[in-house]
């Protein structure tokens, strides 16, 4: 089988549907300090499927408000605009690839890993000095290129899975070997098409890159934070992947996080609890 031509991949990404208009509007509000939360809330409420998912998570045990969040307006009051925004983006993005289109690719395990990485990123965000909403969104999307490859090029991606099984290697190694490109680059291209902020595009594209030890120190950027969250999510092993494999942890990025292992584990415990609630986004 021939490797994929990057132009062919970009052309396929161009044919994928856009995100729902209300999700795009929520995304734009990240860049607007004066965004009208009330008006955006009304638009969210008009999308029944989206608002049902948001309310299901808002009423999950994690928030301790079971049954008390009846409307999107209630959710905005008790959870805050920021939390509702990330839930809307989560519901919109996870619903953007229908399960039947992904063939043998385990879409539920894929999104579960994304949700765990997102909650890990959110919990680590303060330690890196990064906005937790952006961290959650980038964590959720970090592997999105994998689902693009699996749905647009199912025969190729089946070969990737076979190569990985035969060599017990990391998915990114199998992709580079079989396809000549990897999900990080494809994810970067999709988040650009979906008009995510450049910092999120860069984080998705670079989450497998190691930090340059010669570069100036300081806290990791969003890509570095997502690398940490990705490793943590694989180590938590909540996606239900029998062949789970923890990626190599970049020592420079970890050192720059400058947190102790006990604090790391406190974040993991909180991320695990949050993920159980956020997983309700995956219910039909």
């Amino acid at each position, binding site marked *: 089988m021939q490797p994929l031509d990057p132009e062919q991949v970009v052309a396929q990404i161009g044919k994928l549907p856009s995100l729902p208009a209300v999700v795009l509007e929520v995304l734009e509000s990240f860049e607007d300090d004066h965004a009208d939360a009330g008006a955006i809330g009304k638009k969210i409420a008009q999308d029944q499927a989206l608002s049902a998912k948001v309310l299901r998570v808002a009423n999950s045990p994690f928030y301790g408000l079971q049954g008390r969040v009846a409307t999107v307006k209630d959710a905005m009051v008790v959870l805050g605009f920021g939390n509702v925004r990330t839930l809307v983006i989560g519901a919109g993005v996870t619903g953007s690839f229908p399960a039947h289109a992904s063939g043998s690719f385990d879409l539920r395990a894929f999104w579960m890993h994304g949700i765990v990485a997102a909650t890990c990123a959110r919990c680590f965000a303060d330690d890196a000095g990064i906005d937790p909403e952006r961290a959650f969104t980038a964590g959720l999307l970090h592997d999105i290129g994998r689902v693009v490859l699996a749905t647009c090029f199912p025969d190729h991606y089946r070969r990737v899975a076979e190569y990985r099984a035969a060599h017990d290697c990391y998915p990114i190694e199998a992709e580079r070997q079989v396809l000549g490109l990897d999900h990080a680059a494809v994810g970067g291209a999709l988040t650009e098409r979906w008009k995510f902020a450049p910092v999120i595009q860069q984080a998705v594209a670079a989450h497998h890159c190691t930090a340059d030890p010669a570069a100036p120190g300081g806290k990791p950027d969003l890509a570095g934070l997502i690398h940490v969250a990705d490793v943590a999510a694989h180590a938590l092993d909540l996606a239900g992947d029998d062949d789970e*494999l923890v990626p190599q942890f970049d020592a420079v990025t970890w050192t720059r996080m400058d947190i102790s292992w006990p604090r790391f584990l406190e974040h*993991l*415990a909180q991320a695990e609890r949050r993920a159980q609630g956020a997983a309700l986004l995956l219910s039909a």
Partner: protein
Amino acid sequence: MMPAAASDTEPDPEAEAALRETALQRLSYLFRRAGTDPTMQALWRAMVDYRTEK
């Protein structure tokens, strides 16, 4: 006299040991490519604490 039945809350050392062993085996599998890298080894030890001391 019959001994009192163990309460539901009393820990069962054998069951706990079995759970710990299962958790360690799964972690070993997850970290099968970790090698001797010090950061990966530290992460492995942290995850052993997390999974066996919860």
